[in-house]
């Protein structure tokens, strides 16, 4: 039993729609869709197929979703898919998979999708090198770029997601690698994951998203070599961690965010070799954080390097570079001779009454910060970096 090739072409009299090719195809066939504009929706794929587009565009004309993958081993590549219908009740998608394992979605372009790629209960899939462009705004009802639910062992790499509601949204998604993606200008989150364990996030870029990146209720996470930048806004975070346990956050850059890292209820996280530069707050620790280690990070020119609420809880700050550090290094070992206290008194005042931020840079605040540095009364005694570096490491 050998697999055959079916060609769909606008010029053909017999097979000029993708729907007709789907009806003709047997399991494991290849469908080649040639150049042209196809006005089709509701294409349900119920057998393993490889569908390759050669400059083909599918326009859903805001009438519905396009591809529904309902079998294993389906591959869809090379398409441009435009104009998916939006809805308050249903999450209509350009490509939707349901219990379709070993899928491949590669090299497609999505313009004005409501949801672009939605994966439900489909294991071992690849989402690679796709471009997703929305025009979401605060006022509009928009969907997510790559939305994954209850699906494990996926590779999500090399995708560009721009101006959707959430760029990449993962819920109950384990053992996946998310790398080399660019997620920017989304209304809410560049990346959001919840209840998703044992995942790796590497070499991604999250830029100018309305609320930044928020990750919650997950464990055994690695976030390495990512860039979180330009996430400004009243409630915008480079990286928000809530109830995250046993994670490695290494070699990331947090640049020009309102808050670089916000951590609440999170434990046993190693923050190493990160650069936190020119943020409003470098790191904000809210309550319930235990056994977190901050080591070898560079805190450069943040308005507040560290804001801290709660007890020491075995959180440690060691061997970091702090641009605010004004100590000396007489024995030339690269490490300051006196410890550094990173929490300024002013940050306590701002935490209680956020409106007082307007006093930043005023002479009065500089004086009370200086007096607290000389003789700390309010900031916790043990919250200090005993070996602050003289020069940045990264």
């Amino acid at each position, binding site marked *: 039993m050998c697999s055959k090739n079916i060609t769909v072409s606008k010029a053909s009299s017999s097979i000029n729609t993708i729907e007709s090719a789907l009806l003709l195809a047997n399991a494991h066939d290849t469908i080649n869709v040639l150049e042209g504009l196809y006005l089709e929706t509701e294409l349900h794929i119920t057998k393993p197929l490889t569908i390759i587009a050669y400059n083909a565009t599918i326009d859903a004309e805001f009438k519905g979703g396009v591809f529904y993958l309902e079998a294993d081993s389906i591959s869809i590549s090379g398409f441009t898919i435009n104009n998916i219908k939006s809805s*308050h*009740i249903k999450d209509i998608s350009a490509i939707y998979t349901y219990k379709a394992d070993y899928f491949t979605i590669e090299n497609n372009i999505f313009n004005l999708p409501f949801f672009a790629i939605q994966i439900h209960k489909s294991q071992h899939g690849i989402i690679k090198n796709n471009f997703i462009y929305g025009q979401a705004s*605060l*006022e509009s009802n928009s969907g997510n770029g790559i939305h994954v*639910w209850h699906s494990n062992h996926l590779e999500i790499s090399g995708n560009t997601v721009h101006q959707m*509601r959430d760029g990449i949204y993962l*819920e*109950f998604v384990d053992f996946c690698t998310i790398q080399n993606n660019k997620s920017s200008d989304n*209304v*809410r*989150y560049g990346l*959001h994951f*919840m*209840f998703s364990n044992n995942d790796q996030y590497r070499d991604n870029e999250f830029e100018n998203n*309305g*609320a930044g990146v*928020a990750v*919650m*209720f997950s464990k055994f996470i690695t976030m390495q070599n990512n860039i979180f930048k330009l996430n400004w806004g009243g*409630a915008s975070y480079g990286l*928000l961690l*809530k109830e995250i346990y046993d994670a490695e956050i290494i070699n990331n850059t947090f640049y020009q965010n309102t808050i670089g890292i916000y951590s609440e209820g999170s434990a046993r996280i190693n923050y190493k070799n990160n650069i936190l530069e020119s943020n409003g707050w470098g790191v904000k620790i809210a309550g319930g954080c235990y056994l977190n280690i901050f080591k070898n990070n560079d805190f450069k020119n943040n308005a507040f390097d560290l804001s801290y609420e709660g007890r020491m809880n075995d959180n440690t700050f060691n061997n970091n570079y702090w641009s605010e550090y004004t100590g000396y290094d007489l024995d030339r070992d690269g490490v300051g001779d006196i410890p550094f206290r990173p929490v300024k008194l002013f940050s306590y005042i701002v935490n209680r009454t956020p409106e007082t931020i307007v006093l930043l840079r005023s002479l009065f605040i500089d004086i009370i910060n200086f007096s607290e540095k000389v003789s700390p009364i309010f900031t916790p005694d043990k919250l200090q970096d005993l070996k602050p570096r003289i020069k940045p490491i990264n």
Partner: protein
Amino acid sequence: MEKYLVIIIILVFRSCSTNPRAINYNTDNCSYCKMTIVDQIHATELVTEKGRIKVYDAIECMLYDLKENPSVVYQHYKVNTYNAPKILEDASTSVYLISEELPSPMGANLTAFKDSLSALNVQKEIGGTLYSWSKLKQKFNL
């Protein structure tokens, strides 16, 4: 002079109302989990007896907040319903469906309905379990 005093007093007392307000979708953040509220079917609101308003992106976030802070007294408990998004109904008169086929923003698969008839109709289609407000609070150990 007295006229200004009366106007000022009226304005001051107006600002102390304990009425619920509309939720600003895409702008407001959940008081519990800090996520931006975008889902118009699941967002909820609480108003304290002093008029302070807390909004949530999901019913489960409101329930978790109630559980963690039992001493706060609320005047209004408001939920959005599946039947009419953006219109806030009273939580105590609403009927709740927990079904895997109808997800909610924080993973509890919990949605409110205005009345039991509409809830039963949807339950017939997609399955799940129905709860009253008191049974729901019991389930969340409140």
